[in-house]
């Protein structure tokens, strides 16, 4: 599931990557912006993959009946620090406006994901240094999630962190090592043919 699918690039990439897992995976995508949901539909169709796309605020309407059913959530949230009012702007601003420390929408997304994620589920979220990623990890740790910074990437304008969260209890026999070692994950990734979609450090 992708929350905030925007152009549809990420959910489409995910569906293409996982296509070789066979027909047993279903995809959902949400966005608050109706142009985004239409664009996402087009991107999915153009690549011959399908996700059910819903125009909604985060996952409003799905919380109860999709509770604990989602195995993978990916989020590229509106993380830019902006004045609070900018969050309420309709239109393209909803793709970046994150309010105070760029955290105001992130801090609504995290509890929503907590409701939907299955026991074995994984959350991937991209954040800025400004969002205080370690604070996000700490908050999630308090909710029972292990966390890891998967990737750090600096551009001229942004210092980006890709975070991963999963339930502490399923982290394996040695949870602290599972939190540090990317080995098992990269070997799974290396079996996928679409490596060009992933940075080599992932």
């Amino acid at each position, binding site marked *: 599931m992708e929350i905030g699918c925007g152009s549809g690039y990420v959910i489409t990439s995910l569906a293409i990557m996982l296509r070789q897992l066979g*027909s047993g995976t279903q995809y959902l995508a949400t966005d608050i912006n109706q142009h985004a949901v239409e664009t996402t*539909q087009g991107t999915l169709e153009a690549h011959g993959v399908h996700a059910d796309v*819903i125009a909604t*605020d985060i996952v409003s309407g799905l919380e109860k009946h999709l509770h604990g059913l989602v195995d993978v959530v990916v989020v590229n949230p509106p993380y830019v620090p902006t004045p609070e009012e900018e969050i309420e702007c309709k239109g393209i601003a909803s793709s970046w406006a994150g309010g105070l420390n760029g955290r105001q929408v992130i801090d609504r997304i995290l509890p929503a994901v907590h409701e939907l994620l299955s026991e074995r589920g994984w959350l991937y979220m991209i954040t800025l240094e400004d969002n205080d990623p370690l604070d996000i990890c700490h908050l999630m740790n308090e909710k029972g999630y292990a966390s890891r910074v998967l990737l750090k990437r600096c551009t001229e304008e942004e210092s980006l962190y890709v975070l991963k969260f999963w339930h502490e209890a399923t982290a394996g026999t040695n949870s602290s090592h599972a939190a540090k070692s990317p080995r098992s994950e990269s070997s799974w990734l290396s079996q996928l043919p679409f490596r060009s979609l992933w940075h080599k450090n992932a």
Partner: protein
Amino acid sequence: MRLLTHNMLASNARGAVTGYPLKLQVVKWSTKEVEPNADFLRGILPKLDWPALVAATHALGLPELLPETPPTDAELSAEGAAEEEGGPLRRLHRALLEIHIEEGTLVCPDTERCFPISRGVPNMLLHEDEVRN
């Protein structure tokens, strides 16, 4: 929007008690065949609200598609279940994953609030005064 998603959607608007299941009014729908996956169907079956799924198929004018009671796990995991045309697995698969609602409306059972489905996308966005505190 497929019926799998419809089965998971509720109204979150102020005034809705459960907001579920949303009544389906279909203007346009299509089918797109995809390969059935028994493991997925067996896994999702206990999570489905069966009466809501059956009601949705009735709304589509397909009262014969699903039985009133859900198939058993044994029926879904039986040898050849995926190949049996018209068998319980293929019927469940068709209902959940092969029917696409293109145009229509979802109606809250508590408040009659309508949520449009346009080009396959349900619009669950609420007005400011409908958002619960």
